């Protein structure tokens, strides 16, 4: 048993799970769809000359304001990667859970978790590599001639990497939380609601400035422009990225410790 084999097995395992494919599609199509909605809004504003009605006019910005939706796909990927281990096989097939097969195949649990984490990061990376360039190309296609001047290509590229990092770290946090909960449903609901509908983290910023250090808010500036975040005094990109990475590493360490001690 070696880590590369375990990673290959986990990649294959996650990739052949319909829920993971759905998460991948959600991350890609969701981001492209929101980008298009943003882009049409920007084009209309530019063509009618009423740019005061939109918060931004650049094609890249339409992508970055859609990027939070990609985190939903990342969350689902992170959750199903481990949640699927604890789903009972249908009664018709003898009960049981996949975790039995997983841990008898790779009994070193730290290796299992490391392999899952690497597989999730690789899959999120693939999702980013499709979603963001396609979104950007779509935005350019829609806004086209109406766009005001050239964009800072290096800045856009680095923010895209930042968005990818944000998605990957979000997926790892989702993975770690699912290891602890041993069930995919609760982390899925909590993380998706917090990431899309009602941000509890954001509401907490109204209560305490410490909420800026919560993982989802800390990493915001990895891709979002400071003036487009509702949080005042958001952490700068590098600091925020490090804080978010620390959350992911810390939660994975706790997950590993629990996984090592717990009966399967």
């Amino acid at each position, binding site marked *: *048993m*070696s880590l590369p*084999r*375990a990673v*290959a*097995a*986990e990649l*294959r*395992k996650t990739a*052949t*799970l*319909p*829920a993971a494919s759905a998460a991948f599609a959600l991350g890609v199509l969701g981001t492209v769809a929101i980008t298009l909605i943003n882009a049409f809004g920007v084009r209309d504003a530019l063509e009618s000359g009423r740019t005061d009605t939109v918060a931004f006019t650049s094609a890249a910005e339409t992508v970055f304001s859609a990027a939070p939706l990609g985190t939903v796909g990342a969350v689902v990927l992170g959750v199903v990667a481990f949640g*699927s281990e604890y*789903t009972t*096989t*249908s*009664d*018709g*097939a*003898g*009960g*049981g*859970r*996949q975790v*039995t*097969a*997983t*841990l*008898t*195949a*790779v*009994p*070193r649990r730290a290796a299992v978790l490391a392999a899952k984490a690497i597989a999730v990061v690789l899959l999120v990376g693939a999702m980013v590599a499709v979603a963001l360039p396609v979104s950007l190309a779509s935005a350019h296609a829609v806004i086209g001639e109406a766009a005001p001047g050239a964009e800072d290509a290096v800045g856009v590229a680095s923010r895209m990497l930042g968005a990818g990092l944000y998605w990957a770290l979000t997926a790892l946090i989702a993975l770690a939380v699912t290891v602890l909960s041993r069930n995919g449903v609760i982390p899925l609901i909590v993380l998706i609601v917090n990431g899309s509908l009602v941000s509890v983290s954001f509401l907490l910023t109204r209560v305490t400035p410490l909420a800026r250090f919560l993982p989802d808010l800390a990493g915001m500036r990895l891709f979002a422009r400071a003036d487009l975040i509702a949080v005042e005094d958001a952490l700068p990109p590098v600091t925020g990225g490090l804080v978010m990475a620390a959350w992911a590493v810390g939660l994975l360490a706790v997950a590993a410790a629990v996984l090592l*001690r717990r*009966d*399967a």
Partner: protein
Amino acid sequence: MLSIEHLVKRRGSRVVLSDVSLRAEPGRVTGFLGPNGAGKSSTLRILLGLDRATAGTALINGRPYRSLRDPLRTVGSMLDGSGAHRSRRARDHLAWVACSNGIPRRRVDAVLEQVGLAGQGRTRVGRYSLGMGQRLGLAAALLGEPEALVLDEPVNGLDPEGIRWIRGLLRGHADAGGTVLLSSHLMHEVAEVADDLVVIAGGRVVTAGPIGAVTAGYPTLEDAFFELTGADAAGAAR
């Protein structure tokens, strides 16, 4: 050889296993018999490194399962059904299992053929019947061409033809020099195939030895079983 010595397992204040020792030798089928809840699965889960023992050891050729390199090439196992996620195709399940232990891909088709699922490899596991799930679990156990097989209630849900087939499979494995440890609460099934018996009740081994020695003095294995486990008395009291 599989050797379990003085195994103790407590869950909270409940004692699941107290001082369980048993051996399964190469070339023999060892039946692990006991009523439901006697501790059969708990013993096998510890042997396979899934659960931790409170005390005692469970070794495979002298080594704990968790220290085996590519364990599926040494021990094939099946606990509670196939262990395959229901939305996955059977082939995809076996493919990742093979991949994790460096087992060649051709084994996937070989074991599907061997367990009689060659035509259903592309079916999602959730659509399998109980018997098909058991066959898939066996396919996964056989994947790495292991020396030892550890099977928990393998005949559950199998039809008479399936039961006959698995009996032949296990006998053949032992006759070829392999080690087979199978648990069951079905006496007849075990009596048909086992060379050695270990009978467990209430987390304790009540008797062990060659099947002839265990049943000596009783008309049938069933009589021996009820006498030794006290299951009859419990049943009568209810």
